[in-house]
């Protein structure tokens, strides 16, 4: 009996020992041999990579006025599994979110298939509305709490807002649905504005709650930089309001105005018409969104005469007082007849060719220069290549090389025909004269500052080349000053108190079917002041103004707009006028006199 009992005890002990051995072996197997596998699995289940989103940087004008900013908003989500009374929930939601109750109820009724119990369940994630203002979301949350309703989830979002609406819309641009810059500075400076998202590895308990104590690797986000533009919003306001007046008066197909500081190439204002509200872009046509200042090309017309004259003076083929026979307004070359306006002119000095804007005079200068030199100077002034402004989508324009010219090109190109130029190229060329021969890259971005305000990257002015010697530019300035006088084509561009230099342009519109369209013109005026020490250079370009043929001239339509902008800009920039230049009358928009191209 004793033996038997001892044996039983031994058996039992042996079984228990075996059991422990098996469990121990299993434990060792799981904890040691399979350690990496199970720890990775645990990590996968409990550990999550949380993205910390960076804030997009803002865009401001030269004095810090915000042009594009972020506004926090909420997305209202409902977890229908927690919603106690869908009827009451829908009533609260519809009232706060200004939605029909039936629409909310319909959404709340959404169900999802559960694979575990093989039946439909209320959805735990129903998006009710995006982009809900913070105060609305706050009130909604309060009422949900007061009425003991559960299941409301408010997700944080951010939308891009443009406080100035349509002002400067073509420069600022906007974002697409993925938050990537689509147009304007938003696009060209996207890499600086977007910032870099951060991340954090964190652990969660079995209910999905974050265990803050077990946070591991963490990289904070780097918010986007602030992009400061060269634009002066007060000046932009002046330009836009004057352009609106002109658009109301002449109802053109489009209009553009650019104001630049010639010495640095800074763009102080840029406006196009038609334009659109950056906050309400739905349904806006591509044509309206187009920044015509850099994406549209027109024949510059007589404003191009400054290139021909500069080339002829620089090559010493003529002097300012060299007399050119303007053939009394009719000159035939290569089977094509050129005309001057009115009854034409007899003999004119080179200066007067520019002042009177004689087509025949510049055509003869073109003939003196010959193809290659004229082409080279056009290219040196920046025509036929992108100016390099920090805006997307700029086109290079068209200046055909001489081997593609027709027989009559040498007489047409000098007066700005057969050349495709963007308004930005035209004003850059005028700035070159104002800047005594130095061509600058037009600048729209002044500096970039990081989110901590510690690091600032400046964009200093960039000189492209010395196009013509300063002495030649001085001669041109003298001639262009006379353009804005009683004997010139742009008397109405006068800015009281300042000596203005500039050039009008009136080009017949090119027809897509070939040739030119009857009674359709692109009129422009590009000028700068004070002529002796230019501080501002501006271009006003109006395409297809509704005006009688005898009034549809750059000197009568675009020049007065320039004058009004100039007067207001001078006061805004605190420029000191000369008392002796104050006496001339301020220009009027309407005139009875016949204009000159």
């Amino acid at each position, binding site marked *: 009996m004793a033996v038997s009992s001892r044996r039983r005890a031994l058996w039992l002990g042996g079984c228990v020992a075996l059991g422990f051995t098996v469990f121990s072996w299993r434990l060792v197997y799981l904890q040691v041999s399979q350690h990496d596998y199970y720890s990775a699995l645990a990590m996968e289940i409990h550990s999550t990579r949380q993205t910390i989103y960076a804030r997009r940087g803002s865009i401001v004008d030269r004095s810090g*006025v*915000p042009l594009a*900013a*972020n*506004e*926090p908003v909420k997305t209202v989500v409902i977890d229908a599994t927690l919603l106690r009374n869908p009827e009451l929930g829908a009533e609260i939601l519809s009232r706060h979110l200004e939605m029909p109750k039936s629409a909310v109820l319909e959404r709340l009724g959404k169900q999802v298939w559960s694979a575990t119990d093989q039946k439909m369940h209320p959805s735990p994630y129903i998006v009710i509305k995006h982009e809900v203002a*913070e*105060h609305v979301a706050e009130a909604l949350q309060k009422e949900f709490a007061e009425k003991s309703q559960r299941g409301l989830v408010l997700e*944080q979002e*951010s939308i891009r*807002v443009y*406080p*100035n*609406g*349509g*002002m400067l819309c073509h420069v600022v641009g906007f974002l697409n649905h993925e938050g990537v810059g689509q147009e304007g500075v938003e696009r060209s400076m996207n890499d600086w504005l977007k910032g870099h998202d951060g991340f954090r590895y964190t652990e969660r308990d079995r209910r999905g709650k*974050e*265990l*803050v*104590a077990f946070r591991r690797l963490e990289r904070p986000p780097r918010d986007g930089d602030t992009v400061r533009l060269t634009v002066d*919003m*007060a000046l*932009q*306001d002046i330009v836009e*309001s004057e352009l609106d007046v002109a658009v109301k008066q002449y109802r053109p197909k489009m209009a553009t105005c650019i104001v630049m500081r010639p010495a640095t190439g800074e763009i102080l204002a840029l406006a196009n018409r038609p334009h659109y509200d950056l906050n309400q872009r739905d349904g806006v046509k591509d044509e309206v969104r187009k920044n015509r200042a850099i994406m549209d090309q027109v024949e510059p017309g007589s404003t191009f005469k400054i290139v021909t004259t500069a080339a002829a003076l620089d090559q010493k083929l003529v002097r300012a007082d060299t007399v050119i026979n303007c053939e009394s307004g009719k000159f035939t070359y290569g089977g094509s007849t050129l005309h001057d306006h009115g009854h034409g002119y007899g003999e004119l000095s080179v200066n007067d060719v520019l002042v009177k804007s004689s087509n025949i005079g510049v055509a003869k200068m073109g003939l003196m220069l010959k193809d290659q030199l004229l082409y080279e100077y056009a290219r040196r002034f920046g025509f036929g290549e992108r100016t390099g402004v920090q805006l997307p989508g700029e086109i290079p324009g068209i200046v055909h090389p001489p081997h593609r010219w027709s027989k009559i090109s040498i007489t047409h190109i000098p007066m700005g025909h057969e050349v495709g130029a963007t308004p930005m190229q035209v004003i850059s060329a005028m700035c070159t004269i104002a800047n005594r021969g130095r061509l600058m890259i037009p600048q729209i971005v002044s500096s970039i500052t990081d989110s901590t305000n510690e690091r600032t990257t400046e964009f200093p002015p960039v000189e492209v080349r010395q196009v013509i010697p300063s002495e030649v530019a001085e001669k041109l300035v003298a001639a262009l000053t006379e353009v804005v006088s009683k004997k010139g084509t742009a008397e109405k561009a006068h800015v*009281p108190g300042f000596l203005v230099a500039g050039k009008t342009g009136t080009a017949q519109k090119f027809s897509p079917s070939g040739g030119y369209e009857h009674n359709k013109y692109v009129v422009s005026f590009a000028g700068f002041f004070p002529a002796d020490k230019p501080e501002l250079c501006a271009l006003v370009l109006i395409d297809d103004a509704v005006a009688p043929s005898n009034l549809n001239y750059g000197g009568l339509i675009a020049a007065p707009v320039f004058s009004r902008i100039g*007067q207001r800009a001078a*006061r805004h920039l605190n420029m*000191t*006028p000369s*008392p002796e230049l*104050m006496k001339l009358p*301020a220009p009027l928009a309407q005139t009875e006199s016949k204009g000159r191209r």
Partner: protein
Amino acid sequence: MSFNRRRNANLLPVARILLLGTLIATCGGGALYYVNAKNEVHRLGQRVKQLEREIQASITKDEVVMARIAKLSSFESLRKRQQQEREAFAQLIPVNDTLVFRIQERPRSSPNSEVRTVSNLQPVR
């Protein structure tokens, strides 16, 4: 003899009990401290999370206010306000050039750079 035997039989292993007690107390205390420390870490974690939420809420509020200020002080908004005020009692009147008086020459300072009163050159009595 018997006294000594009884004394030996009832002898308490005080040192051993003390050692054991100390060991148990140390281990128990350590374990409790560990649990407490763990709880503290979790509690601090929750506090960190709460502070993060508060900071986020402050930043959000700040951004909302900034966006609102930007909107209200924008040129677009000012232009609208100007439009409204054209019909109101207090109007904005543009200052024409005829109403602007410009001083061309600045007054020169005296050679010895003495400070002078602007309006009253007479000595004050």
